[in-house]
């Protein structure tokens, strides 16, 4: 049977004719604003302190300072709770994850969950409070109740497998905001409870001055997050392979780490290797939480490999963490097997670390100096058979920002981005290497597709 262009056009037209109305810009904005809990799409200011190298698939993340969790505020002392470990070490990673970067990100002062507290009543009602933020576009709250000192707004209840909850926002007369979710309080009583919300002071979260509720958990304000990113790939046989990533954020948290404390957050769970992982649909973007001794927030594609990596996270003490760090760093120092060096006409030399078909990092030398700054491969693509197709690396030499990479000439289906315009290239066998120096002072440049590259942090 032949299939004609007209037939395909007809099929597409039939499908397109079923297209719903597009979401409006205002609706999209509301999705962001109406998400009072943690969200996977927040902006963080990078203050990279720790960068570790993965060797043999071993990955780790953790803190350097080793300090214990601090009290979030004098008015917000948990009635109970445990100080959780600040170091997390995955027990293993899928083979397809090839490298990682670990950063310590400064807490984003603008994020809505900079500080939060959870209160519980004897009857099981729960309320989570976070410091609110100002938005130009505010959601339209269907319910509103003025009280002495402010006005409480809420909408709900919303439903999930975890039960019903109501999102709210309290705007105080002095302009400060508190936001959050409440569960287990009947509709007629919500206004009364919210009238007892008090704004957070400095970095402390809002509080609830309701004698019927007790503080059971709180998140530290202004804490640095630990963000670990694994790069990998996935794809279907015969299809393109797509870069994948797994981002794990660990933050200090006081109180019993119980997903049930997170009011109405999860909509699904997964049992992986005997551990339960909770999928939260915050703003309808999936985020995974591991119910462990430490609160872990993960952005992942949700593949079984990703979930297994999450399930394998475990809390370790500082000694074990330090040992793992030194082991990996030592391995990185010993490992620099030069797979290939490439000399460009300009005199730039790229030294690839690892095997030619499995590079782990790149050193660049310029101007015949022997200075060689190492950077991990920033992104790469592979065929379904695991053969590398391309790699790109962002690298700083002094204050000069370079992007260097290679493209394999494979007759595969895999995605391979074009070499950036203006780059200097050298061909070795079936590989085309390139290097490009970005303008002085540039922080972001666009690749050939318009996708931004970011100047790497030191």
């Amino acid at each position, binding site marked *: 049977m032949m299939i004609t262009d007209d037939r395909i056009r007809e099929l597409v037209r*039939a499908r397109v004719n079923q297209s719903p109305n597009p979401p409006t810009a205002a609706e999209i904005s509301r999705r962001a604003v109406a998400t009072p809990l943690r969200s996977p799409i927040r902006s963080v200011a990078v203050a990279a302190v720790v960068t570790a190298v993965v060797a043999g698939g071993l990955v780790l993340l953790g803190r350097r300072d080793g300090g214990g969790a601090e009290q979030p505020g004098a008015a917000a002392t948990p009635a109970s709770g445990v100080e959780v470990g600040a170091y997390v070490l995955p027990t293993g990673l899928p083979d397809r994850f090839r490298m990682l970067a670990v950063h310590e990100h400064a807490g984003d002062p603008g994020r809505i969950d900079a500080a939060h507290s959870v209160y519980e009543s004897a009857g099981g009602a729960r309320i989570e409070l976070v410091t609110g933020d100002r938005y130009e576009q505010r959601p339209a709250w269907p319910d509103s109740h003025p009280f002495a000192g402010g006005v409480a707004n809420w909408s709900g209840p919303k439903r999930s497998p975890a039960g019903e909850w109501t999102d709210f926002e309290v705007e105080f007369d002095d302009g400060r905001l508190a936001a959050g979710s409440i569960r287990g309080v009947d509709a007629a009583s919500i206004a009364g409870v919210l009238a007892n919300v008090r704004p957070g002071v400095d970095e402390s979260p809002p509080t609830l001055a309701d004698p019927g509720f007790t503080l059971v958990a709180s998140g530290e304000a202004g804490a640095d997050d630990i963000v670990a990113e694994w790069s990998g790939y996935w794809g279907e046989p015969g299809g393109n392979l797509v870069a994948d990533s797994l981002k794990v954020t660990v933050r200090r948290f006081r109180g019993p780490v119980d997903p049930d404390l997170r009011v109405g957050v999860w909509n699904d769970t997964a049992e992986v290797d005997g551990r339960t992982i909770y999928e939260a649909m915050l703003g309808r973007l999936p985020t995974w939480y591991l119910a462990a001794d430490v609160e872990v927030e993960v952005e992942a594609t*949700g593949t079984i490999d990703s979930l297994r990596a999450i399930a394998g996270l475990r809390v370790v003490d500082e000694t074990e963490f330090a040992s793992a760090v030194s082991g990996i760093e030592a391995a990185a120092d010993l490992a620099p097997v030069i797979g290939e060096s490439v000399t460009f006409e300009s005199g730039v030399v790229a030294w690839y670390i690892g095997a030619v078909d499995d590079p782990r990092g790149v050193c660049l030398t310029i101007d015949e100096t022997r200075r060689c700054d190492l950077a991990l491969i920033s992104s790469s693509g592979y065929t379904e058979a695991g053969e590398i197709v391309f790699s790109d690396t962002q690298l700083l030499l002094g204050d000069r920002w370079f992007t260097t990479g290679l493209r394999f000439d494979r007759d595969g289906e895999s995605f391979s981005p074009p070499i950036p315009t203006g780059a200097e290239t050298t061909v070795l066998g079936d590989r085309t290497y390139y290097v490009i120096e970005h303008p002085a002072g540039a922080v*972001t440049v666009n690749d050939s597709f318009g996708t931004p590259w970011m100047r790497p942090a030191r």
Partner: protein
Amino acid sequence: MSVRAVDATAWEAMYRQHAANLTRLATVLVGPHAAHDLVADTVLRCVAREGWPDVANPAGYLTRALVHAASTAERSEAARRRRELRVALWSRADAPATDQRSGVDALAVLSPTQAAIVFLLYWEDVTIAEAARRLGVSQGTVRKQLDRAKRRLRKVLSDDDHR
């Protein structure tokens, strides 16, 4: 969460210009029931990114992000269950004419990349070079995936014809 990028109004003008076509593409990728959310979530995720203001080709960026998001969703076991349920409900509820029903089901067998290529070539009538540019793949990949898409469509339509 930070709403730095979401506060900005610059993206809104761009989005309004492309909203209808992005939603059509999403419909081809994931069906009419999930298209709305796919567009909203993808746009939200993109515009909230730190580098978004520097994206030179926002429409192309969103196109690739939609395809990626559809691929991601397809890989999700939960999404798979939802999709199967949706198809089942769809089949019972809509009971469209045979020809249209075949078309709907036929497109569902395409991978997100293949569906996007078919959409761009047969709905937007762009060239292979332009489709490659928008999707961030080589022209060779577009040709190969188009060939595979046609073969898949041919097979599923042939099967339908023999039922």
